């Protein structure tokens, strides 16, 4: 039986208005998905910095090994090599400090994405709905006649919970949208700075690929196999595999750049009131993990 009760009509109109508001622009779940993807990205970022540091030190060691060969060829003083090693170690310590700043920044971003994810979670609306349910039950026990009022065959007491949940979702969405209006640029810049650092590291990586890796191949692989007077080291085959396993076109750094760009695109979609496709972004984040794992596995192979 449809109620003609004014309170019942009020509840219906509230539900209608709330449902309309909830349907426009990105939904709370879109923010939750974005926060979750952002969390995945910043979880991987410190590993990418570790990877970059190891690659850069290894590349410089390969360069020093080649320079050592040159010193032998030219019969030069070894003191220059010693001093160079000390100077470069100092520079790598500085670089480690720079990477630590980036890692701390990633931790800040992690804290942000966790907070955003909590705000956008269903749990908030569910808790409010539970409290509303309890409120309706108490109201029913105080005035049992309330339980007899129905709207489209649904008792009023049964409507409190869904309406409150929907209301909280709209409120969540409003907070999220307002937040993005105020702080979207900061988050955009934060992701952009991580991306910018990865782009710089990719440039370094490319320089190493074209120059240092070739030298490493010469010193670590070609020289021992061509030296027929001495026995090949047992790890020679695994070293070769480790060197070849590192793809020159797709590395954890390129995957991190792709993921950062995906994250920025999604943020832009949310800022422009559109819900963005997040599948591509999730794949990029998984790809960083897969590439890091592949490198770890090949390194473990060399150590064995």
């Amino acid at each position, binding site marked *: 039986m449809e109620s003609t009760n004014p309170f019942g009509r009020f509840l219906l109109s509230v539900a209608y208005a709330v449902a309309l508001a909830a349907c426009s622009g990105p939904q709370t779940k879109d923010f939750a998905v974005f926060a979750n993807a952002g969390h995945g990205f910043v979880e991987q970022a410190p590993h990418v910095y570790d990877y970059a540091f190891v690659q850069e030190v290894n590349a*410089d060691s390969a*360069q020093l090994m080649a*320079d050592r060969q*040159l*010193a032998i*060829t*030219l*019969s*030069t*003083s070894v003191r*220059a*090599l010693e001093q*160079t090693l000390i100077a*470069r170690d100092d*520079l*790598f310590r*500085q*670089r480690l400090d*720079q990477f630590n*700043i*980036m890692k701390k*920044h990633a931790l*800040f*971003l992690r804290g*942000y994405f966790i*907070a*955003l994810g*909590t*705000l956008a979670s269903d749990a*908030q609306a569910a*808790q*409010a709905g539970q*409290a*509303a349910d*309890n*409120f309706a*039950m*108490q*109201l029913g*026990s*105080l005035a049992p006649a309330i339980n007899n009022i129905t709207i489209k065959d649904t008792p009023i007491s049964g409507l409190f919970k869904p309406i*409150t949940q929907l209301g*909280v979702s709209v*409120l*969540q969405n409003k*907070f*999220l949208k*307002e*937040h993005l209006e*105020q*702080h979207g*640029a*900061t*988050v955009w*810049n*934060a992701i952009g*700075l991580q991306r910018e*650092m990865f782009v*710089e590291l990719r440039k*370094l990586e490319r320089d190493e690929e074209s120059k240092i890796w070739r030298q490493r191949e010469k010193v670590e692989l070609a020289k021992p196999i061509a030296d027929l007077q001495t026995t090949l080291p047992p790890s020679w085959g695994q070293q070769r595999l480790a060197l070849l396993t590192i793809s020159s076109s797709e590395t954890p750094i390129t995957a991190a750049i792709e993921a950062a760009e995906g994250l920025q695109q999604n943020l832009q979609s949310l800022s422009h009131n559109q819900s963005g496709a997040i599948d591509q972004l999730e794949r990029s984040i998984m790809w960083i993990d897969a590439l890091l794992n592949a490198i770890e596995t090949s390194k473990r192979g060399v150590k064995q």
Partner: protein
Amino acid sequence: MSDTAHGNANSDGVPSAEEIAEAKAQLEKAKQQFQQAESLWEDDAFIKALAQKPQAERDAAFQRKLDIGTQLLKIENVRLALITRRVQENSQALDSAITDVSQALQRLQDVTRILNALGSLLAIVARIVTL
């Protein structure tokens, strides 16, 4: 403090967008010069010729070769520092964004708390009415 790059360096010494672009261009130029000097050492004929030179000349040339590599590393560190200095400023702005999200969360939780308080109040009223 704004998180975006402005025309001039701010009071914390964080470089502006123009200063960053200028610094990057200069660093790139220096890097190319060092790389050009380094490429000389890939020429076997040059190394063979150098090996015939007196000890002092060989030592000095080798020292220069090592210095090139060190200078290139220094340039890279400066390039990365151009980013890390801005990162420190952005961390402060992120802190404020986290506070904003936490406050919104607090306001949502207040809704639940009010509903719970109303439920408790009604329970007390119901007990009083039945007495």
